[in-house]
């Protein structure tokens, strides 16, 4: 027992640290990507579709508990520890070989921790728990078989005493196996910073915690992916900072550290982006498309429930509400929903369109808003910003003027910058009558002078970035191409 306890404690510390310390947002996400409903229909479908349906049902139940990461991590660790002990028991290994018993638990743990983005596209049922439960079951059967065989032979147990002479060597080998598999598991664990940061952003959005999204954007030290850029811009819009801060945030397009680059923004962000930006039909569409592919994941049910509520489809909303009430943890907080809905309703004030996004979510949203005319104040501001991002300046002044009275003296900085620039480029508007900050005017004058002095645009971009990198001017003149995925 004394030889077993250190291994056990060490494994628990490592497993809990990886799951709770490093992969906590991943566990939370795994929970909402795990279909599990306490309905008879769900159980029957699981049994009918899979040979080991009852085992997968149990595995799905346990995996759903990752909604509480400490609980999910503890349950998985417990199963993995049980595997190690069952291995020793089934194979009748001496304590000196106990380190070897942890190879399988580490391998099984890494099967889950290395998933990363692939958790979204995996059709494997309960990827974290299914194999460990199956392994545990297999070991128990094996152990009982070995026990049965021994009872038949009635011979003395071939226990550890014959191996005593080898104990030291086995102990060493055993420890190396333990350490090696722990290292291998750690090495394989998907620790991509952008991925974990994007997950945290996504989960903050789901909590309607927009300040947290911006904090996460600020704290991220890497070039962001388009998904992170989209989430950040959405948070800036939601917190009323879009006009002041959008171009100050990095407009990165870092590659997703996963194959098939084009699908991750859609899989992780489409439902949230469309829902919060009033394209509810498209949010529902992608939730349903993904439910066809990946089953009744709580994430999709939540989107469809919210959209049905916003659309006033009461019977449909009740259906999803009932489905969510049969999940373990996703019964809805109606107060949060009402708060969310109040913020979204102004964006629903437009004529329905028949359209398609071809899976290009960011591009579609930008184009759609850039080409929108009229609507609520929120829609006009999104139209103005998206036309700035897409550099379609034709409709700038009508939108700007429509919004001007509502700004009550303080025009958001980027719109001031755009007004000066558009007036300079197109003429026809006297900006001296507009309430533009002196600091912005002076910056713009300095930029015009600097541009005149400097040569080609390539060298301008480098030189001017330090001073003007947070302005719309810099974005308009020096950021080439529209970055979308």
């Amino acid at each position, binding site marked *: 027992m004394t030889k077993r306890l250190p291994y056990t404690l060490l494994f628990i510390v490592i497993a809990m640290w990886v799951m709770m310390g490093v992969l906590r947002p991943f566990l939370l996400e795994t929970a909402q990507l795990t279909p599990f409903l306490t309905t008879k229909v769900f159980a029957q479908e699981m049994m009918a579709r899979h040979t080991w349906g009852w085992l997968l049902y149990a595995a799905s139940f346990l995996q759903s508990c990752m909604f509480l990461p400490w609980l999910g991590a503890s349950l998985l660790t417990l199963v993995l520890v049980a595997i190690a002990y069952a291995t020793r028991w089934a194979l009748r290994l001496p304590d000196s070989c106990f380190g070897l018993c942890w190879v399988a638990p580490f391998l099984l743990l890494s099967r889950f921790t290395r998933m990363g983005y692939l958790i979204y596209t995996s059709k494997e049922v309960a990827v974290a728990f299914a194999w460990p439960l199956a392994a545990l079951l297999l070991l128990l059967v094996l152990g009982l078989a070995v026990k049965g065989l021994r009872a038949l032979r009635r011979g003395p147990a071939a226990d550890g005493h014959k191996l005593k002479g080898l104990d030291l060597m086995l102990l060493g080998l055993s420890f190396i196996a333990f350490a090696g598999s722990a290292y291998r598991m750690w090495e394989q664990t998907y620790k991509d910073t952008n991925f974990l940061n994007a997950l945290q952003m996504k989960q903050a959005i789901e909590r309607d915690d927009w300040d947290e999204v911006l904090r996460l954007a600020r704290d991220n030290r890497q070039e962001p992916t388009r998904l992170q850029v989209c989430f950040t811009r959405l948070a800036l819009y939601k917190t009323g900072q879009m006009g002041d801060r959008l171009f100050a945030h990095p407009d990165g397009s870092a590659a997703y550290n996963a194959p098939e680059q084009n699908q991750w923004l859609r899989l992780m962000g489409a439902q949230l982006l469309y829902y919060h930006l009033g394209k*509810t*039909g498209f949010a529902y569409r992608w939730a349903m*498309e993904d439910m066809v592919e990946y089953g009744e994941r709580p994430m999709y049910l939540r989107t469809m429930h919210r959209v049905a509520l916003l659309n006033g489809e009461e019977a449909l909303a009740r259906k999803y509400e009932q489905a969510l009430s049969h999940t373990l943890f996703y019964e809805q907080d109606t107060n949060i929903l009402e708060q969310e809905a109040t913020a979204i309703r102004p964006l629903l004030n437009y004529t329905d369109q028949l359209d398609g996004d071809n899976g290009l979510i960011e591009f579609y949203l930008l184009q759609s808003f850039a080409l929108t005319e009229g609507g609520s104040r929120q829609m006009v501001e999104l139209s103005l910003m998206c036309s700035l991002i897409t550099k379609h300046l034709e409709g700038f002044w009508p939108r700007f003027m429509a919004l001007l009275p509502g700004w009550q003296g303080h025009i958001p900085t980027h719109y001031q910058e755009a007004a000066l620039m558009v007036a300079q480029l197109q003429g026809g508007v006297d900006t001296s009558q507009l309430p533009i900050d002196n600091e912005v005017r002076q910056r713009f004058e300095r930029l015009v002078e600097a541009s005149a002095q400097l040569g080609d645009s390539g060298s301008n971009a480098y030189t001017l970035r330090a001073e003007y990198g947070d302005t719309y001017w810099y974005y308009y003149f020096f950021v080439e191409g529209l970055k979308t995925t």
Partner: protein
Amino acid sequence: MIIKKNKLQERKAITPLSRREGLGVGLVCLLLFFYSCSTSLPQQAEEAGRMAKMMPDNNGATLPPNLAPLNFEILEEGDAFVTRLSTKAGEELIVDGRSLDISLKDWQRLMASAVGDTLWTDVFVREDKRWKHFQRMANPVVADSIDPYITYRLIRPSYVMYEELTLVERCMENFDQRTIFDNMPMSKGNQGQCINCHVPQQQGQSGRSQFHVRQAYGGTVLIDGTQVRKVNLKTDSTLSAGVYPAWHPTLNLLAYSVNETGQSFHTLDPQKIEVIDYASDLILYDPEKNEVTSIERTTNDFESFPTWSPDGRTLYYISAHHELEGESIDADLDQNYQTLHYNIYARDFSPETHKFGPRRLVFNAEAMGKSASTPRISPDGRWLLFSLADYGQFHIWHRSADLCMISLENIERLESLESLNSPESDSYHSWSSNGRWILFSSRRADGNYTRLYMAYFDKDGHAHRPVLLPQRSPKYYTQLLRSFNAAEWMVRPFGPSPKALDETIRQTALQAKYAGSALLVPENDQAISNAKITKQNYHNIYENN
């Protein structure tokens, strides 16, 4: 009289016989007696003055004698529930519990006694030690039976993705169902396929039926008894492989529409999707010769959803006329989809020569500002049943879609069939072999998930209140996140084994030959109409490969 505990609580059930025995032998049975008293009807009950809320609510629906038990759940507040089902002839079944699971044997006895009359349902609910009696529910029971089987697709109300779907056969006389084909096991990675509607010839009386496979393993699967083969109906001279099928009632022939179909999505409208034909024509397929001939082949007319008259001498179908505005038909129709109005047309057919006569208008929906789809003729040839909506032809996504009917003896009169319809989409329908039952799809429960209903259609041409396809668990429909799609009656079970289907689908399809026009006097054959489809992201959802 039968007094039964709910089957869900069968372990506690006590029959009147055991109660009498129990009274005579001792304490244990005395306890059982006291317990069993709760299964009898309350001595006194106040009248609630309204119907009980229940799920599903089939009050007033006309029932066939051979339908599976109509289990339901009482949605009233209360701590005890008793339901009495009874007939005028004196049969009675008393069941306790909120959720009913009536045994097949008891149900059949009740239904046999109720034929030609009414099945009564009385619900009693106890709350705060007082019993309430709700208004009696009445279900007329007719002698005309339904066909014993149906087939349908069980599918998410999906858009473009389609991998997770099954073809299912359900026995209507009990709750048995089996999967004819499961699409998932055959789909590997991106190599998925879509299985389209299973359609039998004459409700399966001949043993012939067909369904399509799209994308990977694409082809049309033809079934004759237990024999299966796969053919590719796409030829260089036709728009696509066969899409919406219609078996000739007696000959081994099928009419199909061939369609260039795309989907676009509403940003706000709860109708969510438009399925639009950018081009469509009609073909005739002869399985014995493996030949395809053209029935309709036009650019500005979109023909679809063919169906035969029961004598096999007329082919009915829908068609809309649209003159292209601009350069691309898909961009044009994505903008103007609400202007597409389909009428019902017909062509006479000679079973001897396999040739069609000229086209004639049967029902002018456009004149009413409406659009007709999925025409189906009753087996006695008297009635033309179809769905009618504000525009388009894919009415499952149109909330305005209702079932309508005209008498082929008096085509001027449109029957609106109010007893069948709802504010949500009511569409795809099928006649039973005796012509007395209409099976149809409706989204009336929640606007999104399609459920199947059956309505009695009497000899006088009146449709009665429909009944929801019964399930063993009353909660089934609220828990099921799938739609019932393209249901068809079957008089006998589907023949081939899943293994035979699987093997055939994996084989290469036999290529059909194009053999010219099927018209007696060939009309102006025009260019294949997909030349004007320019949308870059366009996929024909009915393309085989």
